[in-house]
């Protein structure tokens, strides 16, 4: 058995048929499937060790707390943060961004200031900034892209001014799969004394992230897109910035002392974590990090690159197919395309009947759709368990659909 088969065997879902076909799961950018080790961790923990964390003195609570904090250490290592105090657990990338938009802006954003995002952003990295700019009478500026989806650094320089206080930027586009020049833009931000958040939802399971090397101020991602459980997100933030920010949600755990007169808040990371957390999800996240580490990013990148090149080579042979962002291969495990005269919804519905699960529509990036002047698109997104036969079957299915609609 080759490595891909060994990996694939660890995902129980592929024992399943979808509409009488073998399941081909190409919807990984929406959420990835879970390996057995992650699923077993969840049941074993609930079965034999479950308890609430942090506040308990009994052994169950101590064990849970230890495991909970072990995940925090694992995340810290995974993205090479400086300290576990910089790792905040949230419920997803969306909440991570909302937290920063709210708690950072409360302290640092003033009337007349400017925030910069790009045309490539997911709604989760647009709407919170629109809201906060409206509230604070600040201005939201948009980095344009060219037809291939590229950001021209000169455009960024032109947008940055003394008023720029924050940049919030997608790392890898969830629609066209290209990587933005974050290294350069992080430098530009800091040169202008602005802070910068990177939305790494589509990056973190595909390439090694080193937040110290990147030197970004914030980095966020979701566990469910990295072979992990639902309901868990991560916010990395530099300690000295997080310390200055306002608390976000408040209640138990994030406080030091509560009285009706005055309440004082806890130290990092707890200042930003209130209420009973998604204990089981967070404990299981460590398992998915271990899983990714056991495969290694070298193999992951190599395999996903091969899949992508294989797919693009096939797709570019069809004259009736237009790949969003062009035929170049600078795409990271994500390709979106449209078929001439066949609506993306029709194509997606037929593909589903062939057992192929993928996503169609605006992909939570309507401004990007507007940029390309399309109502929606068809997206294929890979994970490590995908293989060449699946792509081959997909291409054959596309041909059948084309025939049907003639």
């Amino acid at each position, binding site marked *: 058995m080759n490595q891909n088969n060994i990996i694939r065997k660890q995902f129980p879902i592929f024992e399943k048929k979808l*509409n009488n076909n073998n399941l081909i799961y190409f919807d990984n950018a929406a959420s990835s499937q879970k390996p057995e080790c992650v699923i077993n961790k969840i049941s074993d923990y609930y079965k034999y060790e479950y308890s609430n964390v942090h506040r308990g003195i009994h052994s169950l609570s101590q064990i849970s707390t230890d495991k909970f904090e072990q995940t925090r250490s694992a995340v810290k290592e995974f993205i090479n943060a400086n300290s576990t105090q910089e790792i905040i657990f949230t419920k997803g990338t969306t909440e991570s961004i909302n937290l920063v938009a709210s708690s950072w802006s409360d302290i640092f954003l003033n009337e007349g200031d400017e925030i910069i995002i790009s045309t490539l952003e997911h709604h989760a990295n647009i709407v919170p900034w629109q809201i906060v700019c409206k509230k604070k009478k600040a201005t939201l500026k948009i980095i344009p892209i060219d037809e291939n989806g590229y950001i021209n650094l000169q455009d960024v320089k032109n947008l940055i001014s003394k008023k720029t206080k924050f940049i919030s930027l997608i790392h890898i586009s969830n629609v066209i799969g290209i990587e933005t020049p974050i290294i350069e833009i992080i430098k530009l931000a800091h040169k202008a004394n602005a802070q910068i958040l990177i939305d790494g939802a589509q990056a973190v399971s595909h390439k090694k992230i080193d937040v110290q090397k990147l030197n970004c101020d914030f980095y966020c991602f979701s566990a469910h897109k990295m072979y992990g459980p639902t309901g868990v997100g991560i916010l990395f933030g530099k300690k000295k910035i997080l310390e200055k920010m306002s608390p976000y949600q408040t209640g138990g755990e994030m406080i030091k002392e509560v009285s009706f007169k005055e309440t004082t808040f806890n130290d990092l990371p707890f200042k930003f974590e209130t209420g009973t957390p998604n204990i089981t999800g967070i404990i299981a996240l460590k398992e998915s990090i271990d899983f990714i580490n056991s495969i290694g990013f070298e193999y992951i990148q190599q395999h996903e690159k091969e899949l992508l090149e294989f797919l693009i080579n096939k797709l570019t042979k069809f004259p009736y197919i237009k790949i969003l962002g062009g035929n170049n291969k600078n795409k990271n495990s994500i390709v979106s395309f449209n078929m001439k005269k066949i609506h993306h919804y*029709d194509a997606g519905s037929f593909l*589903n009947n062939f057992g192929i699960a993928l996503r169609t529509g605006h992909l939570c990036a309507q401004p990007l759709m507007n940029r390309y002047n399309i109502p929606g698109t068809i997206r294929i997104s890979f994970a490590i368990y995908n293989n060449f036969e699946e792509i081959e079957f997909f291409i054959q299915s596309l041909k059948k659909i084309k025939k049907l609609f003639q």
Partner: protein
Amino acid sequence: MKINNIQDEIINDFSLFDNWMDKYNYLIELSKDIILIPKSKKIDENLIKGCQSKVWLFAEYKNNKLYFSGDSDAIITKGIISLLISIFNNQSCDDILNSEIYFIKKIGLNEHLSMNRSNGLISMIKQIKIYALAFKNRIQ
């Protein structure tokens, strides 16, 4: 014909096909029979929100009955809205408001058609009932 009789007829028609591909082909055929919305009515106001594909739906009230026309940019959706129009056309407001749509499940396409918000079937039926309610209120 009554709403449920039409639904039963549709179910009967689809029962002739035993695989989804043939059913889809039939749906594509049906999309061509749609009572097409007049060009002048194909405007944003008559667009149904909550669909991945665009769906236009227009209604007129004549002789105590409702008359529908529609269109869609996706063929499958057009087939569905065409079926819905054939069911609800020429019916009274009350009959429409009291109706229950069961044919989708029965023709065995609901595993294949996304019944959630992405195809907007629910939005379409809702819009049809909103029309019925609006005209009913207007005449009272």
